[in-house]
């Protein structure tokens, strides 16, 4: 049986915590598998926006991947709730959205926030996540 991790590897860097918030459970499941597969991230998934802020306080993620359009509550509201707490006020948030204008898409930001337009490829996703949680990255 192939184990996912090699035995004689140097001590790995501490895993970064990623909170994935999306109402689509299928999607969060795939994102979680991809992130975990790298071995560098610890992932928690929230499928209901109302639970996102509370999960963030408990989990204290290094990054939040946040869906913009969710039933009952959109990504902007969730981001506001997360930043309302001192502990998570500076946590970087990467928005995942299906609805942006071409110009917004070209700029890659909405209202100054980093975002990823769905559908995003595995490479792009990992690249953006890595950039946001890397030690050199500016911690908000």
């Amino acid at each position: 049986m192939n184990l996912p991790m090699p035995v004689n590897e140097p001590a790995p860097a501490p895993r970064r915590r990623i909170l994935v918030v999306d109402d689509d459970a299928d999607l969060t499941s795939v994102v979680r598998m991809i992130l975990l597969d790298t071995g560098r991230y610890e992932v928690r998934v929230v499928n209901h926006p109302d639970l996102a802020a509370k999960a963030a306080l408990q989990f204290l993620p290094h990054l939040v991947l946040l869906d913009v359009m969710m039933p009952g509550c959109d990504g902007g509201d969730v981001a506001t709730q997360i930043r309302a707490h001192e502990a998570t006020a500076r946590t970087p948030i990467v928005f995942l959205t299906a609805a942006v204008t071409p110009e917004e898409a070209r700029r890659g930001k909405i209202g100054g926030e980093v975002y990823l337009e769905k559908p995003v490829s595995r490479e792009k996703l990992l690249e953006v996540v890595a950039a946001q949680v890397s030690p050199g990255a500016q911690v908000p």
Partner: protein
Amino acid sequence: MNPSLRLLCLGRTAVEVAEAARTRGGWCAEVILGTSEALADTEGIPAEWSRADAVVVSLDPRGCRDAEDLDRVRSRLPGRPLVAVVQPGELSVAPDEILRRADDYLVADEAIGRTLERVVRFACEEKRFEDSLLRERDLFSRIWGRLTELVAVVGLDGRRLYSSPAYRRVLGDPAALLGTDSFREIHPEDEGRVRAMFAETMRTGAGKSVSFRFLLPDGTVRYIESEGTVVPGPDGRPDKLLVVGRDVTERWRMETELREREEFFRHISEAMTDLVAVVDLQGRRLYNSPSYRNLFGAEGPRPASDSFAEIHPDDRERIRRVFLETVETGQGQRAEFRFMLADGRVRYLESVGTVMRDAEGRPAKVLVVSRDTTERREAEKALAREHALLRTLIDRLPDFIFVKDTRGRFVVTNRAHARLVGFEDPNELVGKTDHEVFPPDLAARYTEDDEAVMGRGEELLNREEPVRHRDGRDLWVLTSKVPLRSPDGSIVGLVGMSRDITERRRTERQLRESQERLELVIRGSGDGVWDWDVVTNEAYFSPWWKGMLGYREDEIPNTFDGWFGLIHPDDRERSRAALQAYFDGSTATYELEHRLRHKDGTYRWILARGVALRDGQGRPLRMSGSHVDLTERRRTEARLREAARWESVTTLAAGVAHEVKNPLQTILLGVDYLAGRPWAAEGDAAELLASMRNAAHQADTIIRSLRDYAVQRQPQARPRDLNEVVSESIALMRYDCHRAGVELGARLAPRLPAVNVDSEQLNQVFWIVFRNALDAMARSTRARRLEVATGWTAGGSGGDGPTLAPPSPGGWVWVEVDDTGHGVPNDVLPRVFDLFFTTKSPGRGTGIGLALARRILELHGGTIQIANRPGGGARVTLTFPVTEPSPSQAP
């Protein structure tokens, strides 16, 4: 027995002697006593003296005392024998003095009885003889002097011995001719002949007449006729020649003149077509001029034939009467008659006779000059027929026809015109002027026109003017007047024609009013009116009918083609068919939506509706109807349809984008995850995962485009130089072009007017257009070239830019994008801008790009069109209305 004598006795002795003689002899009838003193103081003589046959005078104190007394007696009593009685020894006057003054003298003693008688009678006889001789000599001298014959006596040697006084008029002083050569003055050409004649006369003694000419020193020529007679000498042999000649120069001249005149007359009569004849008093022909051959043939009339024979029987007696009257009165009369030709044809002749008289002044012949008037009569007849025809014609015409002379007087008018001014017979109007038959104001108006026509030679055509009928009605007439010219071109009057258009005008006015009302009503409804005479093809299009297409009243011909020519080529057959179907009865109503060309070159959608008026057989005679401009309505409808479509698409896109993207995201990330598994690195699994990834990307592209299309917002427009925007887009495309092997060219016109654009949206448009061009050239084997050009067109239409753009007061800025690809199939062209329409293979085109481009252009008030270029490839043309920096529009 001797008649008794009366003696005038002067002086005593004379009385005594006379008394004694009377007493004794008885031969003395009477003694008249007198004295010479009676002569002293008076001029005349006592009355009784004149009765005396002879005068006896004595030389004594009571008689004549001296020679002077004798002279006095002699002068007072001329022609009477004067006998002087003298007493012997008493001679106071010498005897030779007495004899010189008296005819005879007696001595008193001897003067007795018979002696005195004898002396007196002898004296009387002698006196009478002397007087008679004197008278005869005087008479002879007078005759000789007046004789015009040239009488000469010529010697044998030809010298003149005598020349009569008549020679003075020919050769000068007859006395000077004595002894001169009688041949000297004869014309050299005649001299030889005359000398020969002279010699022959002398030889034979028989004189012959000879004619010759005198050539005078001054060069004049006299014609002489003479005859010689030989005068024998004492020996009986020819001695002299008595020549009697006559100057015949005058006669010769007259004869020459006569001959010339006859020649002249002959020439004239031969050349003349007039017929000249001379007949005797019975009408028999004496002479006929050569022109008679026209009537009688080459032979001419038979001489002395009856000149009345060929006159038509019906005219013959009349002409004979005229002839006799002419002879009788000497006054010629002109007469016309028919002349029967031998072949039975008739000619008309007009003749006039002149009486020719003989030397005594009695009528002897008649000269008749005739002229063949057949042609003239026929022409006159034809003219009369024509005139009658014309007269009938113009009298039948309802129009008013008139001819005026230069003074405005009617020369010819027709019945209608005469009735107009109150006459039944047109002739009654002749000679009158407008002022006599029309009210003054109208007459002045007509006269002014007449003067323009006749004065300046201008034609006055179709002048509408009022006229007053005699019955008081005011009429309107349509008048034309043209100058009437004589053959030499000068204006001699005018010809006029007026037509009563009162009724027509009334009808026209009513029609116009009714039409105006209709027009007003229909115009209120925004419709144009048309009326088409199917038979003549004439049409009426109301001003608004034309106005809705941008034309003025006179810019569209009022015919069927005036409409048909404006129809869009694609609509023509359909329009014709619609009309035909209505005519045939296969459609109950005529209703047609078709495009008509506006004056600005664009097409307008017009709804035509109409109704036909048909004849008994159902054939259409005319058709009328209306036009409604549907363009705006159509545009609005199109916009509404477009908006509805956009609405639905926008809604759809927004929903779909979200709902589809999440599953897509799951699939894509799932595929990516699986692809990272070692078992999926190659083989079927790897291939399958690649296909799944492609499918997910394709779905994403569609969604993305839909979303782009849906999220279009109102442009954030601001004035820009379009060249800058184009340059930006070109820069963005440069890499793509390079990769696709396409040469990129740009021709940007300098100094374009600013246009209001949202440059981000335009970049998107250009990206779509460029992308399409690259795709079109992807499989092209030709040189791949993308050419971008800009330019602008001034306001209105025209210029060298695209002409399909709607009007813009400030003009248009345009961009043309040419490629060298495969072009666009013609059947596809009308649909290329439709949403979801694509010709690209599945997975390459969404059918959204050009629809989006058009949407953006429309939001800018511009247009986008695609056409195939003649040389191959397509041309996309974009137009943008020029921003007008008008201060009046500022708030």
